[in-house]
């Protein structure tokens, strides 16, 4: 009788002490080791090269532009995409980064972000479209997206390094994983939000499902898609410091190196550069979103 009481007491106060701890850590370590042992060749041989080559090409292209020309270009892009104010701001922000002596780091970071965003769109857009067309697929994707968005990146940095070795690639992979969910979510949302009346009209004229997607749903979802792109860019930027820990360069490295050497000034310069880059990219993509043709009548300014 006493033994039973004791068992019940323990069940309330310390239920986990009654059983042996689940060897979850060991399992995961073994699983990761197994994956690394068996698939490293695959990841390094097939996943790494495309990411690497896109990154290198982007960096080569952006780095090849003379900084003066680049400033003019960013002004024009800001002006056309949003307004002359945004153009001017972009010009000033980039000029300030250059003046602070971290222009090259800015170009590297911009290339990192561009590469990550390119892959996020290339993978996220089709997945988002699939989600919008199949409830079952959307339900399957949802927990996966939650995991991608909420798992702390530090958790998968080390396995990433084990698979890809240090450098830009593991950082990029981590960034792509972290930044892709809003692209998928907002593509799905944008397409689903297109009013049924337009779809009905398109159907009544004999459109195929594909024509409905590309001629009606997609253009009308564009403002939401642009919001997704904007979020993806912002999330990629938030990863550049973390990516620097495993060998990515650019402004993130300035911050990380500054912290390591307790060089507060260097860290801040890198930080300010990241913030300015984020603001410029945010304003430009928001401007694109506002100008997208799919706005509903009452939203159009």
């Amino acid at each position, binding site marked *: 009788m006493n033994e039973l009481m004791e068992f019940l007491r323990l069940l309330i106060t310390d239920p986990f002490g009654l059983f042996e701890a689940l060897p979850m850590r060991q399992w995961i370590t073994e699983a990761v080791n197994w994956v690394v042992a068996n698939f490293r060749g695959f990841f390094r041989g097939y996943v790494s090269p495309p990411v690497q080559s896109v990154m290198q090409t982007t960096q080569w292209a952006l780095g090849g532009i003379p900084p003066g020309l680049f400033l003019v270009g960013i002004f024009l892009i800001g002006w056309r995409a949003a307004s002359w104010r945004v153009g001017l701001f972009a010009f000033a922000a980039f000029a300030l980064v250059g003046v602070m002596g971290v222009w090259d780091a800015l170009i590297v970071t911009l290339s990192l972000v561009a590469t990550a965003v390119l892959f996020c769109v290339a993978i996220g857009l089709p997945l988002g479209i699939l989600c919008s067309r199949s409830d079952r697929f959307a339900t399957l994707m949802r927990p996966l997206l939650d995991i991608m968005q909420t798992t702390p990146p530090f958790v998968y940095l080390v396995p990433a390094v084990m698979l890809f070795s240090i450098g830009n690639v593991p950082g990029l992979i981590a960034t792509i994983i972290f930044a892709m969910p809003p692209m998928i979510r907002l593509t799905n949302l944008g397409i689903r939000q297109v009013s049924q*009346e*337009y779809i*009905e*009209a*398109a*159907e*009544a*004229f*004999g*459109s*195929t499902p594909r*024509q409905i997607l590309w*001629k*009606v749903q997609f*253009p*009308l979802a*564009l403002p939401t898609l642009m919001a997704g792109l904007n979020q993806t860019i912002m999330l990629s930027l938030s990863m550049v410091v973390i990516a620097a820990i495993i060998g990515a360069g650019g402004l993130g490295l300035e911050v990380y190196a500054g912290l390591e050497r307790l060089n507060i000034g260097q860290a801040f310069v890198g930080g300010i550069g990241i913030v300015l880059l984020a603001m410029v990219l945010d304003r430009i993509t928001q401007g694109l979103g506002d100008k997208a*043709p*799919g*706005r*509903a*009548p009452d939203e*159009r300014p």
Partner: protein
Amino acid sequence: MIRVEGVTKLFGPDPASVLARLKAGQGKAELQAESGHVLGVNDVSFALEPGEVFVIMGLSGSGKSTLIRCINRLIEPTAGRIFLEDPETGSEEITGASPERLRRLRRRHLSMVFQHFALFPHRSVRSNVAYGLEIQGVATDERLRRAQEVLAMVGLDDWGDAYPQTLSGGMQQRVGLARALATEARVLLMDEPFSALDPLIKVTMQQELKKLQARLGRTILFITHDLDEAMRLGDRIAIMEDGAIVQLGTPEQILVNPRTDYVARFVEHADPTAVITAGTIALPLGDRAFTPLGERDGLRLLGHRDHPTLCLGVDDAGRLRGAWRDERPLPLGELGRTLETPPPGHPRDDLLLSCSRDEVLRRVLRGRLHSSLPLLVTEEERLAGLIDEPQLIHGILEKRGPRVEEATA
């Protein structure tokens, strides 16, 4: 052009299973309470003749919008068959067509105009109009040229580059109409196209649709909840209640002879003067009130009990050849021609007017400004009857013709 046979639509988890109950005579309310299925359309059959405007009228919830969507299968009917009958290409069943064939039918033969326009906000007006051609794969130049032609037809030549949301409601629906006309589909499905418009714009649009229709001769299925609109546009009208057609006929047939209380309530406030025709309210020659007065100069003479001074002369073919009052000959006039002249200050009592039996009462009434004598009604030029003041008043108020007392002799 379109033949609809026993089309039924039930909304719910398992409509096929409920079909038997419906056949067994369960009503809409019963069905809903016992099986949770909503009856949208109940065993509807009708046929659209080529070139006619067929109006389906009913209150909201009567199933008219569901029915029109069954025709091009935006809504899949639960039972029944629908055929497209093209005089040139023959008969083709719409129900049961594969997705591929259904798309071809929608592209080539059935186009649609929507209550809330449903214009694509991301496309210019011209590109909206060209949409149907675009998805058929018509080349850009060609489809934009044709879109421009159709825009000119609806009076929007200069608005091709504008975006739909910058246009007024009436203009937007012109674009909707142009979009439907552009594919040159023979059948036009119009789902309450003018219901969202201001009353004044609405009337303008109705007039323009009539004009366009006179020119293009499409076959139009037109949905409305507005009786005046139905009467104005429809060659024939079907009235729907609880998913079923309760009466089908010409506007006049429905107005003069409403078959159920529901229809009667509908038509109660309709303006009869635009719909009821002279032939309906005229006292026919066969009535006892007409009396033979012998013959003169080869003409058969006729008198009327209530107009003893009047004498009508009819030839062997039944045509009116002369009229006398108190033995003095009366000048004869034709209503249509007389109405083209301004009315005299006071109706003349020495002019006898006649009109065809198809003239509507509004024009008959206007004729009273010209002549105070009874109006003669002809059918294919033969004298058919007579309308005097009591019949006219009776016709307008009661919306029906006189009770005829057959002559015994």
